[in-house]
């Protein structure tokens, strides 16, 4: 993709930024669809509150902190590279982001195995169906983000253009924001329930 030659460009926004925003918008409607379905069902199933109470709240909370921190290090990586031009520092921050992402996955894996042992499997009830579908899809996005981060980390050392770091940054924050929605819906809304 040769952005420099976009010959007689008529808007100032570079094509890659348009591309990434378009991509994120299409992701938002997918997760949005799932979340809306979940909420609609949740109104009709007050007993889900009890099920939600059986999630491992402490793991979820720790993971929320882990993911938020990784977003922070992502911003720092972007800042170091784009604003300060310090490639080495940026690489270190990006590395920390990747480690935090891996940590998130480890916790999530621990959680899954704990739950499956306790018989909390997808076919148990719709709540657990949603739980695995939504967190699983989110997890896949984390994995995708980690792979992309790794590729970019490799690319940076060869001095590739820094706009990639902004793209992946936007994506990473998006994955983070999705979690911010999932966490209260699945873990926190545990007492009684609406209606």
């Amino acid at each position, binding site marked *: *993709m040769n952005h420099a030659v*976009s*010959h*007689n*460009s*008529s*808007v100032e*926004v*570079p*094509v890659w930024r*348009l*591309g990434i925003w*378009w*991509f994120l*918008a*299409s*992701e*938002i*409607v*997918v*997760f*949005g*669809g*799932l979340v*809306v*379905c979940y909420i*609609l*069902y949740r109104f009709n*199933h007050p007993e889900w509150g009890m099920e939600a109470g059986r999630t491992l709240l402490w793991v979820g909370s720790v993971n929320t902190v882990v993911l938020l921190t990784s977003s922070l290090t992502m911003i720092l990586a972007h800042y170091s590279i784009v604003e300060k031009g310090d490639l080495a520092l940026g690489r270190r921050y990006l590395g920390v982001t990747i480690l935090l992402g891996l940590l998130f996955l480890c916790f999530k894996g621990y959680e899954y195995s704990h739950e499956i042992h306790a018989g909390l*499997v*997808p*076919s148990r*009830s*719709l709540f*657990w*169906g*949603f739980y*695995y*579908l939504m967190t699983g*899809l989110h997890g896949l996005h984390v994995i995708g983000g980690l792979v992309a981060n790794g590729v970019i980390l490799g690319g940076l050392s060869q001095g590739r253009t820094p706009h990639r770091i902004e793209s992946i940054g936007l994506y990473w924050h998006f994955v983070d924001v999705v979690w911010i929605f999932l966490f209260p819906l699945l873990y926190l809304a545990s007492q009684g329930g609406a209606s």
Partner: protein
Amino acid sequence: MALVGGYLAYLFRHQLAWPNEPVPGFGQVGPDQYNMFVTMHGTIMVFWVAMPILLSGFGNFLLPLMIGARDMAFPRLNRLSYWTFFLSTVVLIVSFFVPGGAFAGGWTIYPPLSAEPGYTGVVWGGNLWILAVALEFVSMLMGGINFMTTTLSLRAKGMALFRMPIFVWMINVASILFMFSVGPLIAGAFMLLADRTLQVGFFLPAAGGDPLLFQHLFWFFGHPEVYVLLLPALGIIAEILPVFSRKPLFGYRPIIYSTLIAGVLSFVVWAHHQFISGIDPRLAMPFSITTILISVPFAFSLFAYIATLWKGSISFSTAMLFALGMIAEFLLGGVTGIVNGSTAADIYVHDTYFVVAHFHYTLFPVTFLATFAGIYYWYPKLFGRFLSEFWGKVHFTLTLIGFNLAFLPLFSVGIAGHHRRIFDPSAFEFLHRIQHLHVLATVGLIILLTGQIPFILNFFLSLRRGRLAEANPWQANTLEWIAPSPPGHRNFETDPVVVRGPYEYSVPGAAKDWLSQGEAS
């Protein structure tokens, strides 16, 4: 894939006309096979014929040319999108051959039929259906990114937004509609897949799930989807009409505005597909109103098209004939849609052949008549040669006769109370007296299918034998006609500069009756 879709139609239409007789060239069609063929026919025609031809095919070729770009913004993404599409096609074809055969629960994959493999006996076919459609959607989303970014960032100098040809507008609006509507369906597909493989029961009442929810997710996508197909077709027609009537397009800006309005409205009409699914009558009313409302902007556009013809010097080239045919037939489809949109009438005609006739009167003109119009019109640009006009007119005549014969009778069949997706109509006493209409419709289909032979021959023979075409054989204004025929690697020899709008034909005082949009820089 159009041939596969048409062949499937032949198989089940034969069964409808002459129930339980072996189909020549195939053999006996069983009830399970009937369901499978109907389902796959709908799936293929919508997702593997209409969308890829209208959006990806015409869009990828024409959009960069029309805005004066050398290529799409992301050529590599384009290739990825193409191969993803190819893969999706392979998956779909493979699904015919796995044990249990292809999916058979209708192209709308309604649960509970689709959520529990036991109900249809199709296990792998259903999973592969979901996988194939998902891949196809991903491919189309990648295409959409490309259309939008290319339009926003690679326009030639002077190509203001309101100088873009209508086709470019339509492709972009269609891409946006697709992107915003498809998400919930993808979410629904994940849930369905979880139902099928992990026995969750999101959509199974026995497990506390709700099948209606899926209908909402599907039609929230499904209705905008019909406009995703319609808009590029309308775009093609808008390019052809002015050229062959030597007149400016009537109401350029109003057409764009009304398209945008229709695009927004298309997100609030979906439940008109569910009037008898058990939705709240208080909900049916507003959806009925929005549905009738949305016909206003489209009626406006069609009248603007017709007004373009007014007092023009019309030449009936094959492309023009198909364009006019598209408008005429689509009008019939649109008008009968108002019947379906009114709750009271729809409760009677829902799921009868009236609906089948209605949506084929919209989708067939969109998918085939507009596509043929576009092919006859842009073939010289694509290959540097003309298609034979004589055989083109033969093709047009047979297609139109065949199509109307195949579907006009179905309105009556539907009013007589024949429900769709019924394997053997002869099993119902009260349908016997309309059996001749089914025979008529099948004869129509056979004429229609035979009518495509001249086209296919014409298409391939003209590649080498057709009359040579210069760069601008129709004396048209839009930028693609500045590029050589066929366009070279970078489309234009020199980047064009745009100096006027796209439809300035027969401008008073001008030396010739067309004024090209661009000049070589």
